[in-house]
Each structure stands twice: as C-alpha cells, then as structure tokens.
C-alpha cells in the first residue's frame, strides 16, 4: 500500500513536471514565433518601401530631361500615359498588366497630387490609379505613402515646366 502511494506520488510529480515543461516550451516557442513573424512583417514593410522607391525611378515615370534623371520626381504626362496603358478599358491591358506583375505584384498603386501652385484651387486633389491588382481573398493589406514631386512637362503656359507636390501610395496584399 505504501509502495503504491509512493508510485502515485512519483507519477503526480512527473505529470506536474511534464505540464510545466510543455507550458514552458510552448511559451518559449510562442515568443520565438512572434519574433520570426515580426521579422517577416519587417520584410514586408521593407519590400513595400522598396517598391514605392522603385516606382519613382521607373523609366515609365521618371523626370528625365535630356537623359538627366531627377530624384523623387515623376513626369505627369508619363503618369497619364502609363495609367492609360494599364487601364482596364484598354483592350491590351491584361497582356500589359502581365508584363507589370513582376514589377508591382499584388498591389494597388495610386499617385495623388495634393498641391500645385498654379492649380485652381492650389490644394485641389487629383488622384490617378496607376496599377490595381488585388490579391483574391487576401488576409492582410498594408499601406505606405512616399512624397514625390510631379513635373508638368506639358500643359498650358501657366503650368508647363512647373512642379506639383504629391505622394505615391502603395497598398500591398498578402494571404
């Protein structure tokens, strides 16, 4: 009888020990997984920032006068042409969008002009959706805005050669 009690005591100690061990291990792995997920989130943020940065350097949009490229600047006429080429009403848009999937991936890219000195009123907001490819049944989306200058290479006498202020907004989708 005494031996049986001793055995049950040992089993109870082992069970408690196992519980504590499993709880500790789960807790530890939980923290580790959170830190890996944090790294992945950071990777996603960095990737999005890289994409926003890359957009202003794309030859399709950049401000280049006689081959000299300006930083953080996009050409308004190139922007309008690029948006038309990728527009859904263009019969070739799906084929052309396929060309741009490696560039933008699952994302929505908009360019918003928020201030132009010669616009009436100067703070009139103009928004152009450049690329829209939403991931079906996405679970997460994150946004980033990068300020840019919008150069008017063409236009009326009052606006030609002027710069407006705006931002590129990138929304990235993930499962």
């Amino acid at each position, binding site marked *: 009888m005494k031996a049986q009690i001793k055995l049950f005591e040992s089993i109870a100690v082992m069970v408690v020990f196992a519980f504590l061990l499993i709880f500790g291990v789960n807790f530890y792995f939980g923290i580790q997984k959170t830190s890996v997920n944090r790294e992945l989130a950071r*990777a996603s943020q*960095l990737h999005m920032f890289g994409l926003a*940065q890359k957009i202003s350097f794309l*030859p399709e949009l950049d401000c280049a006068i006689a081959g000299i490229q300006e930083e953080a600047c996009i050409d308004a006429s190139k922007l309008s*042409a690029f948006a038309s080429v990728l527009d859904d009403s263009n019969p070739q848009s799906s084929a*052309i969008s396929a060309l741009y999937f*490696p*560039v933008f*991936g699952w994302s929505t890219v908009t360019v918003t002009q928020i201030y132009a000195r010669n616009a009436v009123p100067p703070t009139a907001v103009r928004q152009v959706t450049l690329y829209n490819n939403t991931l079906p049944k996405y679970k997460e989306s994150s946004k980033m805005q990068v300020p840019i200058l919008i150069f008017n290479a063409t236009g009326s006498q009052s606006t030609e050669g002027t710069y407006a202020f705006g931002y590129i907004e990138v929304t990235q989708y993930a499962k």
Partner: protein
Amino acid sequence: MKRKAQLDVQFNWIFVLIAGAVILALFFKVANTQRQLSADKAAIRLQNDFDAITTAALQSKDTIQTVPLPKLGLNFDCADCSCSIKFGRFSIPFNDRSIFSPYTVEGADAKLWTLDWKAPFRATNFLFITNDFVKIYLVGNDPVLDRIKAAMPADVRFEQISDVKDATNEKYSRVVFVTLGNDAPAIQTVMNSKFKDVDVHVVVVSASTNDLTFYKRNKNMIEKENAVDDSGQTIMTAFFGDEMLFGAIMAQDMEDYSCNAITAFKRLEGVGRVYQQRAVELKDTTKNPACGAEYTVITKTNDLEGGFDAANDGPLPTIIKFAHKTVVDESSPDFNILQIAADSLAASNEKLLRLSCPTVY
C-alpha cells in the same frame, strides 16, 4: 512478497527510462526547433538586407559598391527562367530585376556593379555581381574587347591577353574567357589542360551578328553550350548594347544570360508601350505642327499588335514589336532591326529637343 518487491523495482526502472526518454526527446525537439527558428530568422534578415541592397543598387546607374557577404555566400538559381536568390528555406525572386551573377558567390564580400540598358531609352538597370574569386580574361586585340576593357571597373579582376596560351591558372574559383571569332577550339584545349579544377565560362562574341556562343565545363571537359532547350526551343543568345554583353560575361551560363536578357526585353516592351501612348497623346495635344509631324513619324503603325511592317511602322512600334517577339519566341531575331529603329528614334528625339518640343523619352 519478495516477487512483488522485485516487480516494483523493475517497474520503477521502466518508468524512469520512459520518463527520461520523453524528457530527452523534448529537449532534442526544443534544440532542433530553436536551431530552425534561428536559421529562419537569420535567413529572413539576410533576405531583407539583400533585397534592400539590390533595390537600392538598381536605382543607381554606373556605380560599383562592395557589400559584405553572409558566411554561406550567395546562392542563385534560374530553373526554367524562374530566377531567385536563396537564403536557407527562403528565396527572393528576381521578378523584374536582371541580375547577372555566378550561381554561387562566396568569400568575404561581393562587388555589385550597375549599368543602365538603353534601346535607345532606358529600359532597365542591370546588376552584375562578382568578387575577387572571379577572373575575366579578354583574349585578343579587337575594338570590341578594347571597349569592354575601357568600361570594366577597376574593382573587377580582369586582364587582356593576346593569346589564350598566356592565361595562367591563378587558383581563382571561376575564370571567364571573352574572345572573338575562331579561337574557341584553342581555348577549349587550354581549358582542358590548364584549368581542369576551375569553373570555366567562355563567351565567344560575334560582333557582326551581335550573337554569342557559350562554353562551360561538362564534367572534365569544356564544351559548347547547346542553344536549344529541352523542349527544342531556340535560346536567345544575342546581345544588344555593351551592357548586355557584360551580362553575358558576368552570368553563370547561357541559360542564366538568356533568362535575364528576356526580362530586360519585357521591360523594354513595357516602357516602349508607355512612351508610344505618351507620344500619341503629345501628338494629339501639341499646337506646334513641326512637333506633331515628328510625333507622327515616331508613332506611326497600322496595328501595334501585328507583325513587323517596316514600311508602315515608326521606330517606336518597331522597338515594341521587336521586344514582344523576343519575349514570346525567347529566340534571337535580327538585332539590326532593333539597332536601326533605336538610331532612328534617338535622331527623332534629338530633333524634338532642337524644336523645343517635349521629347518622347
């Protein structure tokens, strides 16, 4: 009674053994999972850093920078033109990036060199990766090789030699030979005798046809690479511009070069289409008839989605169609067509600049 006590002792030992095994297994699992998690975290961090480095490098033109390498080096893979950089279980796909590099780059650091590729407008930036373990020999004396030598940055290890026999095995892990014309058999002989233990990449340039022939090691012999893939499709082996030629020199092999060159042609098609649309919009809105006439010359086409039509297509539609055909066929059309269209577009763009009209690019 004695028998019961014996059973008790035996049971205790079995119990201790099982419990010990469970605890030991748990510790092994913890250690293993911890190792995997640490490796994943390091891989993700490396992946982030390298993604940021390549993105930043590709935004600059004609620059070379030295970046420290992780202990495991860089490992690239280009299976069926789905190219990526591998970091443990993770990888970064090249996507729209044209990165010409050996598949394995080891050592303390790597050199990242960027050049913009134009036809005649900038379509993309090329990234070349090399390091001190790679040596490039330019074999012979020719204006093309002299041009390559002049453009090669001092940080890249290269040497111009007049004869392939002058090449010495200096224990580099990879040796690249660039030559023109018919000395490929001589190179093969020297490679097979002097460079038996080295990863060898030979690029034979045909300057008149803008075509390239590649040789690489197959077991103990240096053999010509077959410009036809497993499905019988011809592989793109031509080059346009010195930047693409540098791509051929820096790439692992013919397939790697071809995949990255096709990526560049995809970008050329995309950029060309945007410029075509922009030029048409400029033509429709300009009040200057001289500008309008030039935009018309540049953009004229009966059908942008049709085949080549030299009589009716302006330079911009010709470039778009050429790039599209190269991407779809993944083979080498006559690059003179692209050269003529690019020269014509460059001349028109100059004319627009002189006329004070908004330029096409």
